[in-house]
C-alpha cells in the first residue's frame, strides 16, 4: 500500500506538469519585448525608399514579418493584411512588411501576387528579426502611438485579430480617434 502511495506521489507532479503544458497556447508565449519601447530601425524598401520606425511616432504601426517560402501561413494571411491596411490607412495606421530570409525575385513575386501596396522591405542580415525576437514566420507586431510594443502575434493572423488589435490601439487614452 505504502509502495503504491509513493509511486503515485512521484508520478503526480509529472502528470501535473504535462497537464499544465497542455493548457498553454504555443502562440501566446511571453515575449519580454511586449510593453517595452519598440527598438528603432531603418529598413530599405523594395521600391527604393526607406522606412524608419522612429519617424512614425504618434501613429499605430503594424509590422508583419513574412517570407515567400512560408507556406501556407504567410499566403493565408496576406489578403487580410492588405484589407486591414486599406481599411485603416486613412486613420493614420502604418503597415510595414519585413521580408525575412528570402530571395529578392520570390519576394517581389509574392508582393505582386497579393497586390500589397503597403511598404515592404528585405531584412538584410535578419537585424530587425533578431531585434524583435523573431522565432519563426509569420509574426506580427503592433506598436502603439507612444512607441510601445503593445502586442506580438505569432503565426498566421486573421482580419478579426488585426481589426481588434488596431481598434484597441486607436482607442487607447491619448489617441486621436
Amino acid at each position, binding site marked *: 500500500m505504502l509502495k503504491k502511495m509513493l509511486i503515485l506521489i512521484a508520478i503526480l507532479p509529472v502528470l501535473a506538469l504535462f497537464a499544465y503544458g497542455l493548457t498553454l497556447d504555443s502562440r501566446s*508565449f*511571453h*515575449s*519580454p*519585448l511586449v510593453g517595452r519601447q519598440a527598438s528603432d530601425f531603418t529598413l530599405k524598401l523594395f521600391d527604393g525608399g526607406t522606412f524608419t520606425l522612429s519617424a512614425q511616432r504618434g501613429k499605430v504601426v503594424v509590422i508583419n514579418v513574412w517570407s515567400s517560402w512560408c507556406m501556407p501561413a504567410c499566403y493565408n494571411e496576406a489578403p487580410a493584411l492588405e484589407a486591414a491596411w486599406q481599411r485603416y490607412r486613412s486613420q493614420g495606421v502604418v503597415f510595414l512588411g519585413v521580408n525575412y*530570409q528570402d530571395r529578392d525575385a520570390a519576394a517581389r513575386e509574392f508582393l505582386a501576387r497579393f497586390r500589397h501596396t503597403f511598404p515592404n522591405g528585405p531584412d538584410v*542580415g*535578419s*537585424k530587425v*528579426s*533578431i*531585434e*524583435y*525576437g*523573431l*522565432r*519563426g514566420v509569420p509574426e506580427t507586431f503592433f506598436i502603439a502611438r507612444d512607441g510601445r510594443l503593445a502586442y506580438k502575434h505569432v503565426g498566421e493572423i486573421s482580419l478579426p485579430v488585426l481589426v481588434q488589435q488596431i481598434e484597441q490601439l486607436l482607442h487607447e487614452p491619448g489617441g486621436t480617434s
Partner: protein
Amino acid sequence: MRGLSRLTLPLSQRERAHHRSWLAVLGLTGLVMVGLVPFALAVATVDLEAQVREVASQLRCPVCQGLSVGDSPSELANEMRTLVREQLQQGKTKAEVLDYFAQRYGEWILLAPPKHGFNLIIWVLPFALLPIGAAAVYLGARRWVRRPAAEESPPRDLDSPYAERLQRELDSYQ
C-alpha cells in the same frame, strides 16, 4: 681649427657608428614587430572565434528543434553568430551578449537556465534528491542481501502442478 677638426673627426665617426647600430637595432625591432603583427592578429582572431563559439553554444536556435546557435546550420543562427561576433568586437562581455539575446527572446533563449529565482530549483533539486536516491538504493540492496535463502527458491512442496511437473522433468534427467 684644423686641430679641432682632427680631434672631433674620430668622435663624429664613433657617433655615426653608434647611430648606425641604434638604427640597426630599431630596424630589427621594427621588422620583428611587423612580422609579429599577423601572428598577433591571428591569435586575436582565434581567441575571438573561441569566444563566439562559447557564447553561441549557450544560445538556443530560435528556429530549430533542440539545437544551439553554435551547432545550427540555419541562416538565422548564422546571422546570430555574426551579431555575437560584432558585439564581442565592440567590447561587450560574454555575459552582456547573452543578456542582449535574453532581453529580446526571454530566458528561453539561454540553453542553461540562469542560477537565480525559480530556476534555482533546477540546479539544486538533483543534488537535494541525490542523498534520497542513494539512501533508497542502499536500503533496497541491504534488504535484498539480508533476504533469507529460503525466500529465493520456491519450496519444493509447492502446491502447484507446474512445480511438480518441473521437478518430475528434472528428476528424469538425473
